[in-house]
């Protein structure tokens, strides 16, 4: 195990941490071992987390973070309306049972929502499906179809269409290839990863 604090933040999390201003109240839904929470607290945010995996929750609390063991599909219901500046859902949307409802909940409890997800329309994924005719196993989607937690794969184009349908405003969007940010041009083809800042 590498010593804590020396590991650089995952690229999408670094991006999210950069764009949340100091002092903001944040709920990180699916906070994992608390990487983003720790970064947010270090910059003076009031950050809390929700995580399904009990080992990750114990790890977070062991680090002094405030984290609730809970399920994004169910437990967001217990947070009051607009009780947070930001509700963050990083790399978790595609694992929820009802991503549409979770998105609604994020925008109910948070004044803004930040959502990141792997883009299923990245050219490598398309190529893999086209040539091999098999569900892709790539760097960002490393788990085979039968054991992947990702039960609702989506593309950047899918997400944009859904937001438009629901009247959700995109305040900003960032696209990543590896740990590099890339432009919005042909992002649905070129980006492995997308991060959206949303409001209603």
């Amino acid at each position, binding site marked *: 195990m590498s010593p804590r604090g020396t590991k650089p933040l995952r690229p999408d999390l670094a991006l999210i941490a950069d764009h949340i201003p100091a002092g903001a109240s944040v709920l990180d839904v699916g906070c994992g071992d608390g990487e983003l929470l720790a970064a947010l607290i270090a910059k003076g945010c009031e950050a809390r987390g929700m995580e399904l995996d009990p080992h990750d929750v*114990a790890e977070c*609390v*062991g680090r002094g973070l*405030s*984290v*609730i*063991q809970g399920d994004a599909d169910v437990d967001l219901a217990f*947070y*009051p309306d607009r009780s947070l500046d930001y509700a963050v859902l990083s790399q978790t949307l595609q694992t929820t049972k009802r991503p549409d409802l979770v998105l609604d909940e994020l925008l109910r409890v948070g004044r803004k929502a930040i959502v990141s997800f792997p883009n299923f329309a990245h050219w490598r994924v398309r190529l893999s499906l086209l040539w091999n005719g098999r569900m892709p196993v790539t760097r960002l989607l490393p788990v085979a179809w039968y054991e992947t937690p990702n039960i609702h794969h989506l593309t950047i184009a899918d997400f944009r269409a859904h937001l438009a349908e629901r009247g959700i405003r995109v305040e900003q969007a960032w696209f990543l290839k590896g740990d590099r940010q890339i432009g919005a041009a042909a992002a649905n083809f070129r980006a492995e990863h997308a991060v959206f800042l949303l409001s209603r």
Partner: protein
Amino acid sequence: MASAPLLAQTRVLTLADPLPLDGGQRLEDVRVAYETYGTLDADKSNAILICHALTGDQHVASPHPITGKPGWWVRMVGPGKPIDTDRHFVICANVLGSCLGSTGPASDAPDGKPWGMRFPVITIRDMVRAQVALLDALGIESLHAVVGGSMGGMQALSFAANFPGRCKAALVIASTARHSAQNIAFHEVGRQAIMADPAWREGDYYGHGKGPEKGLAVARMAAHITYISEAGLTEKFGRNLQDRDAKTFGFDADFQVESYLRYQGLSFTDRFDANSYLYITRAMDYFDLAEEHGGRLADAFADCTARFCLVSFDTDWLYPTAESRLIAHALNAAGCPVSFMELSAPFGHDSFLLDIPALDRVVAGFLG
């Protein structure tokens, strides 16, 4: 972890002022027996109050004076342990109504005779008032943390809700914000067992032999079942027979589990007062933190500034995870920083007293 017994001496504080009770009475000359471990900082900011469970006592990390057994949380409290007495000043007081030095039904009433059933019915909040009076006497304005499992967790919740500003953190393990019908039902079985014992004498058994030992033992046996998971009992005893090769076709303790429960019941009567058992179980049954605050649990925490951590165990059917989750959601609604997790442990409710390394990490991490 090395476990040399800590040196701690029970001290007894007699409260200068009468203690106001939820039942409306004021109790004079209340005594609070307590132990402390570690050293209080110059600015009195490193104190941790540990609240004990139903049949617990102030001997959190020192040998029990009657049984000689190690302190009930010696694996958690001590130098270098999750509740680190090298850094924190740990206080543990015998609760009001109990029988190890604090005022309870076995204590003398103003007329010089034991209170017995004349002792006023008390609540969890009354116990907390006595703890706060102790902190006042020690000059501690604000605790680093208040910590408790089971009934200790109820006190920790009540402390944080009713005395906001007097603790910076509350750690609540295997507990609940209200007693359920099932919880009350099990306690009622215990109380009726005590009261059905002729030796109980309407609570007036002091100075008349050994008291309602049989009833108290049955009460303890019934309660003990609720502290263990079904799987835990099966793993420990199964259908194994006790020191015999075949069933006796009689009512001896044929099964190991019977023998174990009988032992648990009998050994309990050596160290606990039956009337205290009645009063403390009543206090637990009366506990409903939401009811105290207009029926909405979140309102109980409206003025809280403390951090909270709630831990439940997946095999605890006495205070199941749903109860802790309810508290976590109420704290969230009140805007309090809260952590909550369900730990996996095979032992049921009693897991909080047993060897669960994940709990150690959480406790150490949360208390800092």
